[in-house]
């Protein structure tokens, strides 16, 4: 079985994945409550927290799965906050030394890319290779607080980057929009909640980027246009129309994601579509993308909620799913942190 370890940002996570059976179990300690007061993750607080939480998390994991059954340790080695990644790597290397099992480094973004397929594997582990092959080439959209990218996975399970954001990530645009609207942290989920009771057509935010024929994303102009809008309104107006503002702003962000996905699918060379990353939990976004996939006649997959944010299950799974595609770093005890690791080349 593969022990996964993840510490790239503010989540300390451990998981055990059994290629023959599926995810044995997973454990996460989130620091959201701690960072709420700061309006975002504070790096040196986050790394101290990892130091504190990995011990107890591993105790729980080892109470469920005896150490003798672990045959490999998979750890996130980038991208992420350097001090946080280092905590996970030193934990993984210590265990690797103590248990005499290999340690491999996993690219956090590539693990997200494979995360929509964890459920496919769980449904029938023995048939996974055959079922997965039917879905390739695959088009994936990764949407989170730090990344927005369209990519493909080819028949050899190799990932190619098709487009990414020119400025802010989609999740960041939602978080910063929430801040402009006076909502708390993390902002994305609060915007989603308020948006459900608002009118997405109440305010018109620019659609120029969404309508361009290039696949590249750009969200900083939307943030500025929200600012223009708010400056024209009195605090009482903003308060009264907050739901409409959230719905319209979220619609503008998602419209870009949906249109670019449609453009990429219209190229016609992908046999499935998958959504991953923290923003993948948003029901409105899921509905928009599922509709695009249906129209293009390709199966729609979405990572399960426990695999959308930072988690170790996807790290252990990717170490296995990507094992022959060259995506796993086999430096072992010489493994280094790579804070600026990219999803893949173009």
């Amino acid at each position, binding site marked *: 079985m593969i022990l996964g370890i993840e510490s790239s940002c503010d989540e300390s996570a451990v998981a055990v994945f059994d290629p023959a059976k599926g995810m044995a179990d997973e454990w996460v300690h989130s620091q959201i409550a701690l960072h709420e007061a*700061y309006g975002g993750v*504070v790096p*040196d607080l986050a790394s101290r927290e990892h130091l504190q939480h990995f011990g107890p998390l591993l105790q729980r994991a080892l109470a469920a799965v005896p150490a003798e059954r672990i045959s490999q340790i998979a750890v996130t080695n980038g991208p992420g*906050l350097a*001090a946080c990644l280092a905590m996970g790597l030193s934990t993984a290397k210590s265990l690797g030394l103590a248990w005499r099992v290999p340690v491999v480094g996993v690219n956090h973004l590539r693990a997200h890319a494979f995360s929509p397929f964890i459920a496919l594997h769980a449904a029938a582990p023995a048939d996974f290779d055959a079922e997965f092959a039917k879905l390739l080439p695959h088009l994936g959209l990764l949407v989170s607080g730090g990344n927005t990218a369209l990519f493909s996975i080819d028949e050899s399970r190799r990932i190619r980057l098709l487009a990414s954001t020119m400025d802010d*990530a989609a999740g*960041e645009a939602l978080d910063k929009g929430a801040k402009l609207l006076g909502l708390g942290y993390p902002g994305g989920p609060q915007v989603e909640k308020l948006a459900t009771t608002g009118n997405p057509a109440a305010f018109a935010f620019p659609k120029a980027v969404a309508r361009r024929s290039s696949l590249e994303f750009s969200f900083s102009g939307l*943030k*500025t246009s929200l600012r*223009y809008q708010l400056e024209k309104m009195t605090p009482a107006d903003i308060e009264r129309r907050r739901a409409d503002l959230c719905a319209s702003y979220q619609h503008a962000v998602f419209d870009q994601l949906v249109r670019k996905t449609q453009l990429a699918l219209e190229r016609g060379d992908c046999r499935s579509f998958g959504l991953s990353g923290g923003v993948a939990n948003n029901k409105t976004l899921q509905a928009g993308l599922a509709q695009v996939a249906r129209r293009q006649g390709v199966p729609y997959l979405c990572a399960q909620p426990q695999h959308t944010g930072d988690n170790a299950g996807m790290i252990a799974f990717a170490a296995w799913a990507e094992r022959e595609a060259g995506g796993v770093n086999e430096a072992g005890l010489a493994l280094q942190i790579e804070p600026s690791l990219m999803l893949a080349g173009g």
Partner: protein
Amino acid sequence: MDSSISARLRAGVTTASAEATRSLAAELAATLPPDTTLALHGDMGVGKTTFVQGLARGLGVREPVTSPTFAIYNVHRGTTHTLVHLDAYRLEHERQVESLLLEEFLTNPWCLAVEWPEKIAAWLPANAWHLTLSIVDSDRHRVQLR
């Protein structure tokens, strides 16, 4: 610094589009002495990252310059300067800048562009250039050197 752009920025320059803001920053970049810190003041959405994109272009950076909010800082290698783009928004104390090991990346000649500089005011070098960005009205933004 080239006296004309310095004088124009001191008086304040109004730009009518994001592209005009980038061009202005690129023009400034071409006159930057080595090892300059630019403190970019201004609220969310006033165009700080857009300004840094223009700086990057002027410094000969080829890769895209995206928001550093998630990673705190990004390092870009330009043809004339190394550009370090720091977002201090989530830093609470000057002491936290020390732990970023920025000095390791400030290879000579460098340009350090700092968003939310007021968060780490005491850490900034005394000779830092302070630019204030603001919104005049829809599409028109203003950049002024203090």
